[in-house]
């Protein structure tokens, strides 16, 4: 059995009702899961003896602007044993959009989630240190949201006083 089919079979067995979509595009496998099952799925993927997805390569998000579930959180995880990269997605909504952190499963996800919070305003619940990363403390906006203007909001970032 190809490794892809093994993943799909195992996950479908374990999370039957929570899987929203399984999709393959140009050889990349994506699995969309209900947002309240994300930690469970993460633990399963990491701890399963055959799957062994031990590394979180990236966490990011997509802002769909007008869609009902406005944000999609995207995780890329990697299995050294099988040399395989898997994409996990979760659709979320609300203001602020919230999802459970996976940094308890993959400690490496800590800063990726901070970055995603900084850029999209997605709150990762139970995250150990959810602070701004690139933008200064106290900045009120989330720059990668679709409603944020490219040139920023005048006066939102302080500059030193002008010298003559």
């Amino acid at each position, binding site marked *: 059995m190809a490794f892809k089919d093994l993943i799909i079979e195992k996950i479908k067995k374990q999370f039957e009702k929570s899987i929203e979509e399984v999709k393959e595009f140009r050889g990349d496998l994506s699995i969309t899961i209900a947002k309240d099952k994300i930690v469970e799925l993460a633990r399963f993927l990491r701890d399963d003896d055959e799957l062994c997805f031990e590394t979180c390569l990236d966490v990011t998000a997509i802002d769909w602007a007008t869609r009902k579930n406005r944000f999609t959180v995207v995780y890329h995880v990697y299995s050294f044993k099988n040399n395989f990269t898997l994409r996990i997605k979760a659709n979320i909504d609300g203001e602020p959009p919230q999802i459970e952190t996976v940094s308890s499963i993959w400690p490496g996800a800590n800063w990726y989630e901070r970055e995603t919070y900084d850029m999209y305003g997605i709150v990762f619940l139970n995250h150990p240190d959810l602070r701004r990363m*690139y*933008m*200064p403390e106290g900045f009120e906006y989330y*720059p990668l949201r679709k409603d*944020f*203007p*490219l*040139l*920023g*909001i005048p006066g939102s*970032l*302080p*500059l*030193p*006083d*002008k*010298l*003559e």
Partner: protein
Amino acid sequence: MGLEAKLNSDGFITTTIDAVIAWARKSSVWPMPMGISCCAIELIAAADPKYDLARFGSEVMRFTPRQCDLMIVAGTVTYKMAQVVRRIYDQMPEPKWVIAMGACTSTGGMYRSYNVVQGIDQFLPIDAYVAGCPPRPENLINAIMTIQQKISKTKARDFQDKPLLETIDK
């Protein structure tokens, strides 16, 4: 300067204090390499033996602002970095000059974006802008020569009694 010829004939010259001080100042400009991103590579190249900034007395890059009188801002200045650039500028003793090196520093360059200051003249007084992305070392040397011309026109009196750290921690 052809001083040797004078020595042979008269053994002395006449000039003004201002001219001598300005001449000394312009021939020993010590740059502060504020290399923030890619432009800094060309700044380094300008100091190497091929382009040889030493010909203009400016090869002594000092990594502390307290020993410098020319700040070369080479790179993309973000809003976060702007505070740092200004703090370092404030620590340089008077008299001091600033070169905005590269498109980013002068105008924001290709980063027409929320996080990049669209030209550092919004918070610093600039004496020379250098065009290019990145500018060639010759171009930077040209800016330093421009500054030298500017310095040679100064009077020693212009810089008297200015407090060293005038604006810091205001």
